[in-house]
């Protein structure tokens, strides 16, 4: 942070580096053995849109998110990101074949994934966590990755923790490093899997603040979350999942004020009652 050129890089660093992507899912199905977790999910997410997935545990939110990043393979249906289908490639004769492991890895470069439990690499410092993948996967020069890594960590408020190992960081700090790590790959789409569920209540706000900035800069985001306050204020659209399907969706104002489905009403009453409503400032629960 002392050399002039690094300061310059840090100064004009944006969280969103490239064009945001759009996503289309049609009839996505997934079973684990006899358990049908996803039973035909249809969802469209526009470029730059922020979508929050909510629903009771077991409704398939996390599984759906993992399918989008091919951490799980789907059993049926199609997911396209900017028109490119996941898990499939067109052969010369126009028919489809399964992607190779290498092709799946290439596709994942454009999709950032933030895990509930951070999954930082404990043997690497915060900065090393952020710079490893760009250098290794994209062949970015070490200096360049380093400068961008420093800039990103500064943007998430961790410029004084560059050389700290994850074990010495609080949960909120670890999650912010994890977000910076995902952004270092300059993704077009960010997936968040309950990013604040494993955090102490007092560090939830700092992670949500980073996510809010990211949304403001125009990133396409799909967030599985129990933070109803965040969904209400930041999301362009809220999607309620239930038993492996999309039960209903809408813009947050309408959705929270006037949910159509009885099941959604009961779910919202329950989570808002038990103080799951997120950081202070969330409006009181709508009457159920």
């Amino acid at each position, binding site marked *: 942070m002392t050399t002039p050129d690094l300061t310059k890089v840090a100064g004009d660093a944006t969280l969103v580096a490239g064009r945001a992507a759009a996503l289309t899912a049609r009839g996505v199905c997934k079973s684990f053995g006899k358990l049908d977790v996803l039973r035909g999910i249809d969802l469209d997410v526009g470029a730059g849109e922020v979508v929050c997935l909510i629903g009771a545990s077991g409704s398939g939110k996390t599984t759906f998110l993992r399918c989008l*990043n091919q*951490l799980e393979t789907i059993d049926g249906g199609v997911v396209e990101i900017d028109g490119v289908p996941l898990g499939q490639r067109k052969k010369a004769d126009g028919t489809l074949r399964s992607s190779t*492991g*290498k092709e799946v*890895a*290439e596709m*994942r*470069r454009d*999709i*950032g*994934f933030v*895990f509930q*439990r*951070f*999954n*930082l*690499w*404990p*043997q*690497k410092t915060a900065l090393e966590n952020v710079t*490893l*993948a760009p250098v*290794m*996967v*994209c062949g970015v020069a070490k200096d360049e990755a380093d400068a961008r890594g420093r800039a990103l960590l500064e943007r998430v408020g961790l410029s004084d923790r560059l050389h700290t*190992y*994850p*074990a010495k960081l609080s*949960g909120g700090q*670890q999650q912010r490093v*994890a977000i910076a*790590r*995902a952004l270092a*790959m300059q993704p077009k789409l960010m997936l968040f899997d309950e990013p604040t569920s*494993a955090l102490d209540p007092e560090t939830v706000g700092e992670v949500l603040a980073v996510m809010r900035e990211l949304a403001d800069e125009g990133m396409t985001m799909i967030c599985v979350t129990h933070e109803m306050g965040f969904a209400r204020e930041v999301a362009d659209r809220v999607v309620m999942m239930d038993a492996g399907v999309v039960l209903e969706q809408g813009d947050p104002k309408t959705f929270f004020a006037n949910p159509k489905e009885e099941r959604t009403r009961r779910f919202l009453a329950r989570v808002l009652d038990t103080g799951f409503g997120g950081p202070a400032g969330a409006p009181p629960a709508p009457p159920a």
Partner: protein
Amino acid sequence: MLSAAVVGAFDSGTFLERVFTPDSDFAAALWTTIYISIAAQLGGLILGLTSALAGQSRFIGFRFLNGLYVTVVRGTPVIVQAFFLYFGASLLLGFDLFPRETDVLGMSIKGAVLAGIAALAINEGAYMSEIIRAGLTSVDEGQLESAMSLGMTRSQAMRKIVLPQAARIIVPPLGNEFNNMMKTTSLLSFIGINEMFQDAQIRYSNDAKSAEHLAAVGVWYLLLTVIWSFTQAYIERRLDPAGKSDRKPSLIKRLSGSADAEPAAAGQAGGHV
């Protein structure tokens, strides 16, 4: 210096001479012990890694072979394995599996030594297989997933993220194994390898001072294992950059066996506290 009157029949002069002024015959035997140990441990590491990966294979055939190998090798004495490897082929099949002299990388190696290295490596591999399996499964699945979510291929993620973490878990039990290995080489005297233990046997069969020669060779084994324990401590520190500033196992700790590398490493393996 202790006198003969105090310690009875023990000839301390012979003992001290064997410990402090080793001759060239002994130096050769010492070297044999060292290189057999290292070669067998490296062979065992490769066999163990192969076997551990086979044990996690999608194919039942590989898993079966892994199970058979581990069960049979861990279930029979290493001395029996060495005998069958060295003498078995000529006794049962009529040919020498390990000829008297073989050229390996320009060096002429005795057949018995090669058979001994092979036997110890095969034996070691079965134990290392289980140790490596435990190491790999102890690394949280999320470590692999986060690496792959950033665009690494599975093998890149294994090499860069999972194996370095597994290595930290594997090194302490591996150190135990190598310590054992250095002493187990003494069994190879039974297939005629002139390592440290046989050197001692030859000497006391000439002068009947068995206690002196065995005590002296015991000191040499102790020296080897102590040197190794320092080497191991160094390797453990190198593999754990995150804990580097926190702890440096002291000499006393290492020697008293109370080194607590594992709890600290395990605490960091999950990526959060």
